[in-house]
């Protein structure tokens, strides 16, 4: 069994602000298959979020994270739909 690497706390907004989260969300919304070479957790989280958020809900509005998307993602984390 492999040892758990050290973890650190991070906000949902920080996760959503990452480029990999946006890429994962974008790929899933476009029907691009899962990119197994992308080892970033946020890529997978972005893809998961695509299966939750309405298609019309943008990740960003005028360059800033969409507060409604952040609230939805936080609730999805609370329900452990995204981990």
């Amino acid at each position, binding site marked *: 069994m492999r040892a758990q690497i050290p973890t650190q706390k991070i906000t949902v907004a920080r996760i959503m602000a990452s480029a990999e989260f946006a890429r994962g969300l974008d790929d899933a919304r476009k*029907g691009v298959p899962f990119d197994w070479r992308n080892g970033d957790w946020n890529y997978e989280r972005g893809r998961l979020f695509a299966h939750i958020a309405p298609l019309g809900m943008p990740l960003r509005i005028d360059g800033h994270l969409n507060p409604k998307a952040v*609230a939805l993602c936080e609730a999805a984390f609370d329900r452990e739909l995204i981990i």
Partner: protein
Amino acid sequence: MKRKNVRSLDTIAVNINQLERGNIIDIGDLLLEAKSQCERGDWLKWLTCEFDWSVDTAERYMGVAALNAKFRSLRNLKIAATTLYALVYQEQDDLPAIIDELAKHASKTRLSPRDARRVIKIGIGRRQYGDHPDATLVQLAELNGWSQAWHEKAVAALLEREPDTDETASALVNAMAAQQKAEEAKIEDDAEQEEVESILDGAPPDLPPSITPEPQKFGADTEWEGREPFADAVTALLRLRTKPVGRFVGRFSPSELREVADFLLAIASGAAEIAEHDRPGRAA
């Protein structure tokens, strides 16, 4: 009926010019007199010809003079011109109480415009809400005319607690406003939470199906036209892979490169399948 002596417009203009600009009530009286003599359309011509004031200034002078005709104590008040002008725009019903209040504070000592504004509010508050501490009346007058729910609550709280300093009265109103803001924020949060819950409990979005590449059909003896270009390309890639990556960045888009990588990996996994198939002793 005995007719009042009527001065000519020229005489009135001379009389006005003899007065100091600060003599607002007398100038206003003379302007009213002049206006009553002018034919329709002549008033503005006469005004602009005789004086370098704006029409608004003349209107303010006349407004103060008209007010003085109703409230004779106005002339004796020690207040600034700006306060006199402010009185012109007050509600008629509030004016007696305002003048009374000003008379209490500005009969002996001069009242600054800032203090006069406060006294005017006290007058308005007293007329509408009766006798309460001045600080309470000021806040009540400031809330006057607002119709939101929290204003009504603030008025009720002021009347009940009757704060007697500006600080406590202002703090009370601010607390009511903050409470209202918090309630509105909670309603907004609840609505947002409800929307989030309905999304999470509802059907997932209708995402397009993932486009899976067609599996390649492999065979060692398969002849096809791309065979030689493929060999050349892979040979070239094997030669180039030792070069610095930076030289190649930007020539092809990430998605194009990803397609090529998928293609090569599909070939690699196909080769592994063939090797497994050809292994001796494997059941057919």
